[in-house]
């Protein structure tokens, strides 16, 4: 209460500053932000950073260990792994964006409708989500790829479908919480229609939660997509997708371990970065973290 009255004069901008400060004081979150920003810069300027064409065979000799000329070594066709990892970051970010985008859009719609409508709609929609939820993500993704056929595009769609129930469930429970708040009843009592309630009141109130969920979901999506590519169901050769590179390196592991280590470490760092960032974002968007007095 004391904070609420105190902030009357403070206004919104000082609150933003407060949250920014809080974010910056979380070392893990800052590290995550640095990793993610670096990844984005690398992806954007890949042609300038990479010394070789990622597809160029015989850029060096085959299965070269890391050296000054080839920092991460070369693969079985003599392609420069350093350049391939750099170009791979583009694919990884693309996969993350599209898979999470699909999952978020579908999950949000289902959760919003299920939670708001209640009754039979809720029961049918949410039980269907439960059915999908009861299988592991990889299994759903495999099934989806089996139907759609193996390709990078289909892998993204498959991952989106497989992770969707998670978003739908969280969205649904957030809607239920919001529905029980007095402002919801106040809006109904004012005579508001469905569209107004859904889009002007419910959506803005659940969006922050969903943003956090999406940030944390990015790492899951990257891992799932890499898994599919590793199994040969996602990106196809000669694409420099990290999961596929990991798979390709498997046959040469005893002779050229760097072929697996390099994409493996790249995936691990990326996932770590998004997880740390997601935790940081969750912390600042959780009102209890700042309003606690």
């Amino acid at each position, binding site marked *: 209460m004391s904070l609420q009255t105190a902030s*009357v004069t403070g*206004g919104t901008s000082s609150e933003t500053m407060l949250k920014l400060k809080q974010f910056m004081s979380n070392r893990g979150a800052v590290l995550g932000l640095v990793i993610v920003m670096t990844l984005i810069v690398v992806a954007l300027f890949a042609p300038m950073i990479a010394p070789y064409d990622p597809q160029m065979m015989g850029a060096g000799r085959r299965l070269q260990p890391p050296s000054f000329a080839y920092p991460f070594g070369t693969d079985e066709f003599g392609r420069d792994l350093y350049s391939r990892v750099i170009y791979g970051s583009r694919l990884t970010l693309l996969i993350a964006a599209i898979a999470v985008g699909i999952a978020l859009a579908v999950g949000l719609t289902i959760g919003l409708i299920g939670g708001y409508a209640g009754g039979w709609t809720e029961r049918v929609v949410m039980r269907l989500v439960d059915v999908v939820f009861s299988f592991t993500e990889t299994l759903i993704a495999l099934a989806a790829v089996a139907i759609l056929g193996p390709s990078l595009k289909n892998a993204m769609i498959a991952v989106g479908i497989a992770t969707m129930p998670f978003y739908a469930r969280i969205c649904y429970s957030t809607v239920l919480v919001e529905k029980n708040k007095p*402002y919801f009843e*106040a809006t109904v009592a004012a005579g508001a229609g469905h569209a*107004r309630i859904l889009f002007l009141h419910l959506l*803005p109130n659940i969006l922050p939660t969903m943003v956090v969920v999406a940030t944390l979901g990015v790492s899951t999506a990257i891992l799932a997509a890499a898994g599919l590519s590793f199994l040969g169901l996602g990106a196809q050769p000669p694409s420099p997708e990290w999961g596929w590179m990991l798979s390709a390196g498997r046959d040469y592991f005893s002779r050229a371990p760097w072929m697996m280590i390099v994409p493996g470490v790249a995936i691990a760092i990326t996932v770590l970065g998004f997880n740390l960032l997601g935790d940081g974002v969750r912390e600042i968007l959780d009102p209890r973290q700042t309003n606690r*007095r």
Partner: protein
Amino acid sequence: MSSPILTVDNLTIGFGRSAEQAPAVRNLSYYLNANETLAIVGESGSGKSVSSMALLGLLPQGTSRILNGTAMFDGRDLLHLGEEDQRTIRGKRISMIFQEPMTSLNPVLTIGRQMTEVVQAHDPGAANVEKLAVTMLDRVRLPDPSGMMKRYPHQLSGGQRQRVMIAMALINRPEILIADEPTTALDVTVQAQILELMRELKDQFGTSMLLITHDMGVVAETADRVIVMKQGERVEEGTVTGLFENPTHSYTRKLLAAVPKIGTSDVPPKADATAGSRAPVVEAKDLNKTFRSKGHDVHALNEVSFSIPPGETLALVGESGSGKSTAARAILRLMEVDSGEILMDGQDIRQFGTQLLRKSRKQMQMIFQDPYGALDPRMRVDRLVAEPMRIHNIASGRELQDRTEALFRQVGLTADQMRRYPHEFSGGQRQRLCIARALGVEPKLIVADEPTSALDVSIQAQVIELMLDLQQRLGLSYLFISHDLAVVEQMSHSIAVMLHGRIVEVGPRDAVLKTPAHAYTRELLNAIPIPDPQRTRGKLTVTDRSAFSKGPLLPVSEFHLAAS
């Protein structure tokens, strides 16, 4: 009087980064004598709770700091004790009762387990703990104390839980009992019983009591001495009779003046003389609603009928669970009733489809109890206030903006506050926003569900004044739901008393309050704490709720009906 057992000197507490510049409690000094009740009174944000939490080391970790001061108890400074030492005092020599009896007991442990735990925490080898616990439950007059030991908190009513809390607090025979708003969450009749119990036990056990409250009625009935706090500082201190008779500080006077006292408002709110003869704004006929839960039915509404003439206020009063809020929601069709009619302009709105219903909501708006929750936190307040007008296509563009601005002024807010968000407003201001929002569509009826019970008394007085003023100017009708008969007296033209889903008495304000015909109404009136230490009420009788007559309403005099 003996020498004080607790002496607090220059206590200063700050929060967060502004701790030093703007402390929440500043240089607070007081003493507490043995077997004395000291009341600390103030409005929200006055620092009354914080200052007593500090004594037990219960301040929120990390954000709050004790900047200065001492609190001497038995030769030791409570503010500078280690965690270990603090624990030997907490719950043993100084114990505390909290405001929320619903949540301050652990829901997964039996009452017996929680009672004995308090003893064993301080004396692991204590003998006959069970027996002691049963004795204590008996002392706080809980029925069947040994059976009570095996029950869980959710099986108890609010009043019973508060009794358990008191038994737990007193089981170790503490020297000081800190009671933080111990009766605020309870119904008046339950409050009266708990206060009586606390007075009795204090004398029996010789405990000193530190009573933290905002309620002047509770102070007058319970305290020996009073400290008035405002924004972290003590503004006045005195004996309870002295303070009520001769308040010296202007803030104390203001606080006392703001307290609604029953029987003091002789002039009823002005009403249109022709009101009675004109058709009612809304008429409820034989409403029934049954909630089914775990095998037994709860009749939330049982043949409830009432009507509200234009420009008048009908108050629905009763204890929690009496069905008054259900009735309010039923009128607005925020909740569907099982049977009955709700007539507006001769039409039964229960028959309306979605479109007609939405249109009919233009005629009736609602103000809620919790002004913090009733406004969407992510919408700017000007858009919130304009929303009902936008929904019902009353205005748009420039006109909408002008009307919104006019509404802000009408409820005592200014146009430069329009671009803010709800969290930037205080409780009273938010309730004004809710009222402005309701007024925009020019409704005939406003349903107000406990609109002032979450507010401080001085703010409550302002909101009531605003509502009365708007009724005068705009000819509004109110359905006013409240548990506070003193507020009801100020607001209403007629009163309906509800018990267990039925109206047991209904009539003009003065008839119901001055010549109550039903025994339950008399009991409610008798239980109200009187904010005057000189006037003590008679021995409180509390009848079993099911013993009251709930037969059909029969006329007592013209317009005044009571259950037979």
